[in-house]
């Protein structure tokens, strides 16, 4: 059972595999884009967005796990928390870290997340057994999302470039909302007695693809990153993921029928 407020969620894919997928995929995406843009060409910046999608899927899986216990308030709150912690950690990591920036950002995010998880259980008495672990995961996933999308937008994670091209221009708000949506929305939309892990995560991929398209549009304004390939891959990924989500929705639904058009005024009389 994984309806909101009923306890641990059933998992087809073990969470540890998803954690590995998120951390490794995210870091490979971020560093891959950073080095390949320098070596191959600016159009490789799309790999950053793929890394961000790994982070978003991980975040959505962690939200699913912790929100299954019932947060006492809406699921979106935890997505906003993830991005709130993530944006602090990401900015700090890039500002002090140089090439090691993303790794430092992830470590700082994990520390903030763990601290808020401990606070939630020890001071606020939320009583969710996996709160500490999940908060750590969610904060780290939020950081990967922000870093990945920022790299996709600028082609680098050098702090002066990110600061002037992403933060000062305000595109960070786009990352905040598009990335937050990919983390908080999947479980919020799918929760209920028939919630299945693969359907929720597929919705996460779909939302991630939308964020990737948006990042691609922003990248067209940047000399260091190329938007066209990011947008194309994003649209293809969105199409595949949306079809996958729709397939799984049909699989899990008792029946899918067309309701037809609303009756007109004459027909009702």
């Amino acid at each position: 059972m994984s309806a909101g407020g009923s306890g641990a969620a059933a998992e087809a894919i073990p969470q540890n595999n998803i954690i590995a997928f998120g951390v490794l995929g995210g870091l490979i995406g971020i560093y891959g884009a950073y080095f390949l843009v320098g070596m191959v060409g600016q159009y490789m910046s799309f790999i950053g967005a793929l890394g961000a999608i790994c982070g978003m899927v991980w975040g959505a899986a962690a939200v699913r796990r912790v929100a299954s216990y019932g947060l006492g308030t809406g699921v979106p709150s935890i997505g906003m928390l993830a991005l709130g912690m993530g944006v602090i950690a990401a900015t700090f990591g890039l500002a002090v870290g140089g090439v090691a920036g993303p790794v430092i950002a992830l470590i700082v995010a994990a520390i903030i997340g763990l601290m808020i998880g401990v606070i939630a259980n020890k001071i606020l008495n939320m009583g969710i057994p996996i709160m500490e672990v999940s908060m750590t995961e969610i904060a780290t996933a939020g950081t990967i999302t922000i870093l990945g999308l920022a790299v996709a937008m600028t082609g680098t994670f050098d702090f002066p470039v990110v600061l002037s091209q992403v933060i000062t221009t305000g595109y960070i708000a786009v990352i905040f909302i598009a990335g937050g949506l990919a983390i908080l929305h999947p479980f919020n939309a799918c929760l209920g007695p028939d919630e299945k892990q693969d359907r929720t995560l597929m919705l996460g991929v779909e939302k991630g693809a939308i964020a990737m398209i948006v990042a691609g549009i922003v990248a067209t304004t940047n000399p260091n990153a190329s938007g066209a390939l990011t947008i194309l891959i994003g649209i293809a990924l969105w199409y595949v993921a949306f079809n996958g989500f729709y397939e799984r929705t049909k699989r899990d639904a008792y029946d899918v029928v067309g309701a037809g058009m609303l009756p007109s005024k004459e027909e009702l009389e």
Partner: protein
Amino acid sequence: MIDVAGILMQNILYVILITLGGVLISWSVHFVPVGGAPAAMAQATGIGTGTVQLAAGAGLTGLVTAGAMMQVTNNAALVIASGAVGAMIMMSVTMIVGTWVYAYGVGCPPASAKVKYDPITKDRQDLYVSQGTEGHGLPTVSFVSGVIGGALGGIGGSLVYYALMSVENGLPLADLVGIASVFAVGIFFVNAVIPSYNIGGTIEGFHDPKFKRFPKAVLASLIATFFCALISVLSIGGL
């Protein structure tokens, strides 16, 4: 690498101000009448959306007004006052429009289910609460409480922003505004979510029994914000 101890010693006042701002935000959320999804269906008292959205709305409006004031003056009192007024206006507008919708659209009188008499107007409440609901609309006491919440949230948000903008650094102004806003928004969201987990769904205002829980959220925010303040002051001060 940056000189960690030096920057922290130099900016310890701002770390304290940011922490204070975070604590104020956390406290302010307890004043705001949050009804969540039940209120959106006129089945609970308050504004029909979640704590985080409301706190973020009020806080970000406060941040914008504080930022506008900072263009004109560096006087802390004026910046903080303008942040407070901005957030109060935002909260009042949200609540008055909500009340119109409840009164003229849904057709229910504002009534609280948590108290028998409105503590401010002394009007009888329980007679007007529809059966099967937890009250509806925004009674006077919730409205006043919401405005107080807006003021505190705005003061907190502008305090955080003011402190971040005052940290000594070598950035051009446009970049400083960008990075200070990002940190302020991040700190704001963390401090909006912590009290919402403390409240757990809905609250009517300072007359609600749940309001007494606020010391726990304030303590939690104190710890979390202090850490966030260290990180943000370090990264701005190190640039």
